[in-house]
């Protein structure tokens, strides 16, 4: 290119940069829409529910009088249901993911399974509720219990856990596997000593994303018959004597945070709307806390695993 062309080059560059600026602005605005909507909703909830957030709010059962109503049964219920969800979905999802990625032969059958697992993630949650009502509540006779709810949400997030597990396993470079196999390791040794530990941060991140979704789910929980007004706590999972665990709580009736909120918003009194906002604020905080844990895991556990 000749030196006389320099002005025209500069013109081209200027035009390209204008396009770039245009995209940057458009992208930033798109981002703002998402962020501002969330911030506005969150701020509004915090604003209207703020004065209800006192220690009593956490230790009181729901009540007919809005001023005395609390979320004790709801947050305890949510925690216990999440516990069952995690304990059921994580082992199943991780094992299925590992099997699909490491063990399953690649054929039409496993292709079909793969496609279906991905599709399952898109099935509306109410459908899981209906399925669980038939299977867990009636067929297995678990009743309208924490166990049924936890397993239902476990099923709901299973595809997320499976997909996260597979993604995490796929991100392990081939040459690391070859190093292990090259030393004479069996498939199980490679899985146990390498695949699982190295994919753990990715798996945990996926689990937490799934759990943050599950904790806000209302429809399937209502479908299987969660209570909306509940003034007792399930028995403690920690027993007073050996072996210090107790499974009675699994059979207990329960409510969860979003149902408590839903219940309050459907009341006409203004004071209950305030309660709903306060509960919503707490629920969002619970979700944010879970996401914070997943971010922490990404930064602190992953930093030891690099190739």
């Amino acid at each position, binding site marked *: 290119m000749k030196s006389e062309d320099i002005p025209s080059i500069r013109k081209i560059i200027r035009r390209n940069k204008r396009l770039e600026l245009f995209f940057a602005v458009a992208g930033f605005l798109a981002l703002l829409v998402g962020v501002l909507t969330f911030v506005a909703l969150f701020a509004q909830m915090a604003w209207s529910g703020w004065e209800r957030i006192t220690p009593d709010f956490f230790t009181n059962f729901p009540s007919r009088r809005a001023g005395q109503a609390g979320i004790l049964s709801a947050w305890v219920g949510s925690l216990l249901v999440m516990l069952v969800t995690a304990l059921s979905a994580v082992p199943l999802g991780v094992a299925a993911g590992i099997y699909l990625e490491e063990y399953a032969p690649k054929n039409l059958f496993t292709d079909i399974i793969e496609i279906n697992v991905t599709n399952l993630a898109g099935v509306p949650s109410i459908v899981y509720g209906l399925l669980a009502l038939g299977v867990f509540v009636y067929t297995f006779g678990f009743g309208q219990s924490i166990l049924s709810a936890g397993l239902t949400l476990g099923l709901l997030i299973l595809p997320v856990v499976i997909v996260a597990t597979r993604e995490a396993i796929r991100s392990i470079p081939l040459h690391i596997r070859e*190093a292990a196999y090259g*030393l004479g390791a069996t498939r199980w040794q490679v899985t146990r000593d390498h695949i699982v530990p190295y994919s753990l941060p990715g798996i945990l991140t996926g689990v937490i994303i799934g759990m943050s979704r599950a904790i806000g789910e209302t429809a399937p929980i209502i479908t299987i018959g969660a209570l909306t007004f509940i003034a007792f706590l399930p028995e403690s999972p920690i027993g007073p004597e050996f072996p210090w665990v107790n499974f009675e709580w699994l059979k207990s009736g329960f409510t969860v945070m979003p149902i408590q909120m839903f219940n309050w918003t459907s009341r006409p009194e203004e004071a209950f709307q305030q309660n709903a906002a306060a509960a919503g604020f707490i629920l969002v905080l619970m979700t944010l806390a879970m996401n914070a844990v997943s971010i922490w895991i990404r930064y602190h556990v992953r930093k030891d695993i690099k190739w």
Partner: protein
Amino acid sequence: MVSSVTMRMSNQGAAEAASQGGSAADQGVGDAFSGVRPDKGVAVKASVENFSFYYGDFKALKSISMPVHEKRVTALIGPSGCGKSTLLRTFNRMHDLYPGNRYEGTIRLHPDNTNLLDPAVDPIEVRMRIGMVFQKPNPFPKSIYENVAYGLRIRGERNRSVIDDRVKEALRGAALWSEVEHRLHDPATALSGGQQQRLCIARCLATEPEVLLFDEPTSALDPIATASIEELVHELRDKVTILIVTHNMQQAARVSDYTAYMYLGELMEFGETNQIFVNPKRKETEDYITGRFG
């Protein structure tokens, strides 16, 4: 009965190859090549016989036959894509990890005469006997100590002090001990590229393999790290049979006793390194070695 016949045949083939090499070495040009140790009648550790390899329908190796001499260094050279890595990876059945690959022919490991490619032979058994060092250093994201100990652990070694000793010995053998003795429990990924490669060699050495495979072990390293790896190969060759793939002619000349020149999936020429470099039998070999190759 059958196997003893095959063994006699394969040893004959090996002896022939060795004597061919010997006659070339007699031409008295050994000085230029510090790596070469003229030596007639060396035992054969492995014999490749009519070996062909397929990636799906693609025939990557075409009826290769060559001996691998015991406690000697054999270099595989040839232009990119000629099948050096494919041949090397066959020795510890790496191709079994991926579907669609197919072996034809045999690779016999002596003295027990096991056909490495026999489907009845467990690839894990093969890999326990034959270690591999890859082109790109591939330490596990674990501690330096755990990297070296891993091969022992999967072999069922539980005794702490035995593992400690073997780790130390292997790190010494790989000329890494003095650099890492005070940081054995640091992550292996914090080591430099050259140190990582020596760690991978130590990881292999700890399991005391009968044959060591190196696939361009220095291609990612600077000249200093390269020199230290080459020196290592030099020291190791008294203890273990080594097969090394390299693109670097000087390196092949420096470290190997025997050289195989491959081209488009075929073995063009095999002989003592001296002979191959000074007096190649084929024009193609000469062109490649002297850099006239297109």
